[in-house]
């Protein structure tokens, strides 16, 4: 994983999504596993909402991801699954075993489709046509077994046919077309054309010359003047051939016939039809060359029913071959390691650094001549531990640009699809974020950006009518604020409508009142299944997004806040705690204690003269800095720091800024600036006022990190 990220970090504005493919495939794999497990555990007679919502969310996440990456076949299939699951969780349908069967099969099909994409489109695509139809029938309330004529055969890569379908009706025989079987030599007649220049086809001949093992090719007479025909002997599948030819001629222009069977034969007809269908616009293919020749066609109605069983047995092992190959390819090039293990590693290295510092300290008085080797060894140790610490740290920290650079492409496609004009602005890409957080924040952010584009930004005409610019703007920003990381998704669209949310909430039986504050009303959109969209699109509108967003962020101990003005846009702020973010800190001393200030909030520091400080009512103090009065906070006072040395006193002011206001902190001394690893104080203790976390200093002791945001708020109110 580290490799992928490093590659990516160099290419901030690059729209190349391929660097995220691996992450997506791993996530999708996990989601599929989880969905499968939940489906198997599902108690049909008393399926509870939580389980159904969980399964639904898995399907939704896969759909979202695959749509982002342009895997339209997977997106289409999961969209259908989602529709069925959506009706289930709304209790519009009663779950029946056939649904679980078809969903499990769809999960398998998605898996092999994904594996195919992961392998760069190698291998045969699984047909999803029949699955999609079965799902939509079930979603429409039909039980497929009731209508034998419609009952489709199981897809080729799916496990053995389910008992339910078998019992319901003798499945129509899938047509076996021998040419599709890989590894078996066969003679084909390939017709290419119509071509503008017949020489184009020569490139095909070169292919056979250049690629060893592909087979033999020779010219034969072509029936039409503007086409070329070849006789080909090969072991490759039609799909593979078409993929190869695609470099030189369009797929539509290629016609593959089995030379062994006469062109008038049923099998060849079928085969030919398949090839044509793939190229035909608006055909059954879902963006890919999905209808593999030889795959059982869903609508093979004229096939004899009698040989069905025999054919199925024969077909099964063949179909399983590509699947085995795909699973082998699904192996990843990265290792997913439990975050805990990385944390442990980081802690151990931290200990090592402290031990090393201690050794360095103790060896300082040694005679350089007498202990030359020892000192040289210690110097090596120093260098090695530092290198080690750096590499270990780099495992976890990655800049936000990794997350942000996912979005321009996605937003572009989405805006095109919706007919909107959207600009994306990203700020604070350099903000470093824990890798664990990055992985978990990506999905919620994707949802938020999609939401903004789909619901927030208006159509260009509407925007012009409202006096806004034609282009909507979505702003993504990341910053460290008050010891947290705040990621904002802002749009200048139509904003949230208070009335609409309240009435929707009432419809759904959520208790609301007119007296609720705006903030409370906005929180309603986080309820599961809540959507204010007027229609369900495959982009959003099912109301699943915000529910997932909230859940994922709550799992990270974060919070989501919404701010919106109807007609002017909305802003969603995701605030995450710094579990392990590295921060530039400034250490200050008060009596014998050390506190860390986030350097990003420090404006300036100066030695204070008694004249500059004036006391106002209730004893609070103000200091005048260049014609600006700002409140003074004495750290000694608010942290009740004990004084042992009466000669020391606080006479240095550090001006910090947060949330747009400034305060002056009164400290004894400035100790230095350094990078600190932010540790969560709350994992073993509770929240401490004015403290955002803790860190470990070079000598192994703990220092508290001040929450400047909290201090500023305290002084201003």
């Amino acid at each position, binding site marked *: 994983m580290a490799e992928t990220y490093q590659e990516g970090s160099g290419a901030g504005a690059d729209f190349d999504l391929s660097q995220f493919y691996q992450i997506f495939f791993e996530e999708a794999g996990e989601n599929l596993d989880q969905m499968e497990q939940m489906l198997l555990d599902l108690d049909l007679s008393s399926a509870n909402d939580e389980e159904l919502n969980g399964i639904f969310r898995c399907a939704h996440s896969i759909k979202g991801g695959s749509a982002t990456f342009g895997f339209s076949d997977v997106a289409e299939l999961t969209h259908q699954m989602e529709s069925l699951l959506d009706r289930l969780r709304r209790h519009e349908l009663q779950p029946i075993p056939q649904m679980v069967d078809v969903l499990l099969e769809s999960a398998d099909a998605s898996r092999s489709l994904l594996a195919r994409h992961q392998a760069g489109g190698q291998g045969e695509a699984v047909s999803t046509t029949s699955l999609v139809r079965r799902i939509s029938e079930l979603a429409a309330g039909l039980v497929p077994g009731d209508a034998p004529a419609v009952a489709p055969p199981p897809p080729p890569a799916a496990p053995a046919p389910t008992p339910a379908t078998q019992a319901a009706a003798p499945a129509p025989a899938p047509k076996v077309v021998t040419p599709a079987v890989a590894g078996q030599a066969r003679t084909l007649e390939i017709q290419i054309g119509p071509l503008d220049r017949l020489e184009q086809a020569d490139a095909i001949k070169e292919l056979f010359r250049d690629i060893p093992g592909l087979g033999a090719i020779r010219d034969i007479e072509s029936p039409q003047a503007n086409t070329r025909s070849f006789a080909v002997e090969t072991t490759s599948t039609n799909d593979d051939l078409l993929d190869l030819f695609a470099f030189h001629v369009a797929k539509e222009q290629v016609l593959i016939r089995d030379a062994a069977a006469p062109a008038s034969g049923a099998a060849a007809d079928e085969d030919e039809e398949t090839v044509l269908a793939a190229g035909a616009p608006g055909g059954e293919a879902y963006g890919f060359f999905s209808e593999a020749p030889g795959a059982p066609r869903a609508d093979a109605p004229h096939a004899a029913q009698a040989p069905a069983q025999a054919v199925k047995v024969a077909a099964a092992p063949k179909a399983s071959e590509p699947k085995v190959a795909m699973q082998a390819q699904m192996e990843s090039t990265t290792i997913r390691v439990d975050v805990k293990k990385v944390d442990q590693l980081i802690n151990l290295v931290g200990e090592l650094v402290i031990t090393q510092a201690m050794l360095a300290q103790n060896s300082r008085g040694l005679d350089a001549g007498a202990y030359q080797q020892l000192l040289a060894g210690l110097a090596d140790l120093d260098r090695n531990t530092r290198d080690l610490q750096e590499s270990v740290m780099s495992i976890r920290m990655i800049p936000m640009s990794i997350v942000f650079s996912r979005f321009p492409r996605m937003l572009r496609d989405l805006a095109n699809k919706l007919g909107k004009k959207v600009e994306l602005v990203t700020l604070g890409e350099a903000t470093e974020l824990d890798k664990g957080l990055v992985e978990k924040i990506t999905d919620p952010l994707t949802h938020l950006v999609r939401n903004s584009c789909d619901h927030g930004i208006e159509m260009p005409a509407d925007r012009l009518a409202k006096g806004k610019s034609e282009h909507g703007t979505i702003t993504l920003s990341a910053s460290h604020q008050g010891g947290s990381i705040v990621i904002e998704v802002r749009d200048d669209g139509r904003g949230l409508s208070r009335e609409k949310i309240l009435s929707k909430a009432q419809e759904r039986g959520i208790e609301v009142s007119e007296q609720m504050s705006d903030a409370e009303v906005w929180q309603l959109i986080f309820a599961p299944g809540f959507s204010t969209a007027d229609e369900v699109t495959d982009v959003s509108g099912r109301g699943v997004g915000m529910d997932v967003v909230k859940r994922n962020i709550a799992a990270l101990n974060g919070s989501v806040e919404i701010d919106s003005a109807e007609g002017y846009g909305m802003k969603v702020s995701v605030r995450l705690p710094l579990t392990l973010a590295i921060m530039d800190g400034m250490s200050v001393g008060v009596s014998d*204690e050390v506190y860390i200030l986030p350097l990003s909030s420090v404006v300036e520091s100066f030695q204070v003269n008694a004249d500059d400080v004036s006391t106002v009512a209730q004893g609070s103090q103000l200091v005048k800095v260049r014609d600006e009065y700002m409140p003074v906070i004495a750290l000694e006072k608010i942290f009740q720091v004990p004084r042992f040395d009466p000669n020391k006193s606080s006479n240095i002011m550090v001006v910090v800024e947060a949330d747009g206001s400034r305060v002056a902190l009164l400290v004894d001394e400035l100790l230095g600036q350094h990078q600190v690893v932010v540790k969560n104080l709350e994992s073993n203790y509770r929240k401490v006022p004015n403290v955002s976390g803790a860190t470990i200093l070079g000598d192994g002791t703990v220092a*508290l990190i001040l929450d400047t945001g909290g201090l500023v708020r305290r002084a201003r109110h």
Partner: protein
Amino acid sequence: MSVMGKTAEAVPTGTREYLTFRLDQEEYGIDILKVQEIRGYEPPTRIANAPNFIKGVVNLRGTIVPIVDMRLKFNCAQADYNSFTVVIILNLRNRVVGIVVDSVSDVMELTPESIRSAPDIESAIDNSCILGLGSVGERMLILLDIEKLMSGVDMGLVTANE
């Protein structure tokens, strides 16, 4: 987290092992399975506005661990910090907490028969945190439900609404 009943495992069923420690003249026992390690005392970083028995936080191999002085919590007469002062690091429900005690004695096996229920007495801590009194020969052990004791709101280790 704030209010927890005596968990099923907290009620002694079979023979259990207890780590015993001294506070002043009294001897206490806690479930050995809750103990992560025993360390010497090192001065912690003070936390402002915390109760006096919370000494602060220390760095335990990269983890920030709060230190509770049981002698102050239990109103003992003396609470000195010297090279013999011992900190027992506890691992309670994924939280790590250190407690300062006068000394650690040993590990004892107690059968349920040798544990009597504690009489209602007035003490510095909530009575429900005392599992019972164990007797080993002449010695009497006060068995603590350390998990419950540490997660109580009055310990100040957790926020009330957690």
